[in-house]
């Protein structure tokens, strides 16, 4: 009896011994358990640093230089003789923008309308992460604008620019954006505009508004962009309209092209946000125009 007991124990022992060597290992599980967890930031919430006119939450990548041309034609309703606005008068903005670290960028721009020269800084405060722990991106924008128009003597605004600091105005925006998926991104940007001096005594130097941008990407390289600026404060007795634009954006290699329709002739933020004087709805002040933006990014 003792012998059989011993044999049985021995056989059992051998079976268990064999079992521990024939164990299968789930290698993929070991790989997953040991993956290096690094914070990866959401990329390409928008294809460019601008939607139509509004700044998006995007800042240029590290060591990137962006050369931009923005062009706005005259209103379509100027008719066939004016080639529906192509003949002008037009507004062109040329700008050069740069980022060293991919987080802070600065730019220098000049618009032909009002000979507006501006410099701006844009900084990515919070960046959305792919794992969802940070659900949105927050970018700060600050721009300083200098109206370089020569004023004719005797005009009503001759004294307006008696000091050169009177020519300055500022725009500050807090841009909050979220990339919902590879096809849809949405952004809001509360905005504050300040003019050092305004034309009419009843006009307010400060105005507040809310920008909205929606981007719908329908193919790998093309998207539809919609933007709207809702003015929140009453700052002038004169009639102005909310700026709205709809654009088609296409990207090839280092270029992003966008062709759009907008009611604003102005491109500089200090002008199109508070002082758009043509509306989308028809009537005497109706004026929607074609425009395009070209962005060429160089990796330095």
């Amino acid at each position, binding site marked *: 009896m003792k012998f059989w007991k*011993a044999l049985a*124990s*021995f056989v*059992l*022992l051998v079976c*268990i*011994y064999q079992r*521990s060597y024939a*164990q*299968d*290992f789930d*290698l*993929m599980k*070991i*790989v*997953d358990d*040991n*993956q*290096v967890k*690094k914070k*990866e930031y959401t*990329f*390409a919430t928008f294809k460019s640093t601008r939607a139509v006119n509004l700044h998006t939450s995007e800042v*240029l*990548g*590290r*060591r*990137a230089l962006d050369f931009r041309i923005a062009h706005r034609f005259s209103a379509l309703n100027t008719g066939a003789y004016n080639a529906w606005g192509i003949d002008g008068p037009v507004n062109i903005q040329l700008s050069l923008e740069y980022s060293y670290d*991919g987080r802070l960028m600065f730019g220098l721009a000049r618009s032909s309308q009002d000979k507006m020269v501006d410099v701006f800084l844009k900084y990515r405060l919070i960046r959305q992460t*792919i794992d969802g722990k940070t659900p949105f991106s927050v970018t700060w924008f600050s721009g300083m604008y200098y109206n370089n128009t020569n004023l004719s003597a005797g005009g009503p605004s001759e004294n307006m620019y008696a000091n050169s600091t009177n020519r300055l105005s500022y725009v500050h925006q807090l841009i909050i954006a979220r990339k919902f*998926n*590879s096809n849809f991104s949405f952004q809001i940007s509360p905005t504050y505009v300040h003019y050092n001096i305004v034309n009419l005594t009843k006009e307010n130097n400060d105005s507040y508004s809310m920008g909205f941008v929606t981007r719908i990407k329908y193919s*790998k*390289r093309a998207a539809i962009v919609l933007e709207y600026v809702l003015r929140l404060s009453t700052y002038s007795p004169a009639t102005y309209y909310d700026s709205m634009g709809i654009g088609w954006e296409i990207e*090839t*290699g*280092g270029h992003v092209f966008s062709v759009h329709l907008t009611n604003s002739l102005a491109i500089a933020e200090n002008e199109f946000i508070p002082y758009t004087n043509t509306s989308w709805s028809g009537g005497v002040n109706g004026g929607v125009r074609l425009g395009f933006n070209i962005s060429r*990014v160089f*990796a330095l």
Partner: protein
Amino acid sequence: MKKIFLGLFLALTFAPAFSQIFIAETCTISMFSATKMENIDATNAVTKPVFNCSSGEIVFKVTNTSFKFKSQLMQDHFNENYMESEKFPYCTFKGKFNDKLDCSTNGGDLISVTGKLEVHGVEKDRTIDGTVKMKDGKMTVHSKFKVKLADHNIKVPSVVGTNIAEDIEITIDAVFIPYVKN
């Protein structure tokens, strides 16, 4: 007698069962595309492949967004337009060494693995060659092979066709150490 058997039984069932698993201590995966217009290269240093010395199985799982390019623009294009990293976050390789590995004695050898390489959601059977060097419990692996973009449904538009090569050269340099579960 009983005590001896019990002792042996316990010792054998709780014997270190993970001794044949190796995990990468360091692993650098780089990709290189050479054309007349420009060269593109990127490096991924965070992958941790694992292999089983006795069964010969090896597994790689590479996170696409961990490839670092010197230009942010190139990195964004890689993830957004070519790899489509939101749809396909990983590239994987699951294969087996074609010859039995000797993980206990020092020495170098030529090796080859056969398995399935999945890139951009498309799996392809591949046999990849390389070299291994075993020294004092650490195994250094080096391999160079090409991945054809067309094999994995990665489309390059004709506009940028002269800037991106059809075959991308992949180089893997890894040092494996025995895996200890913590």
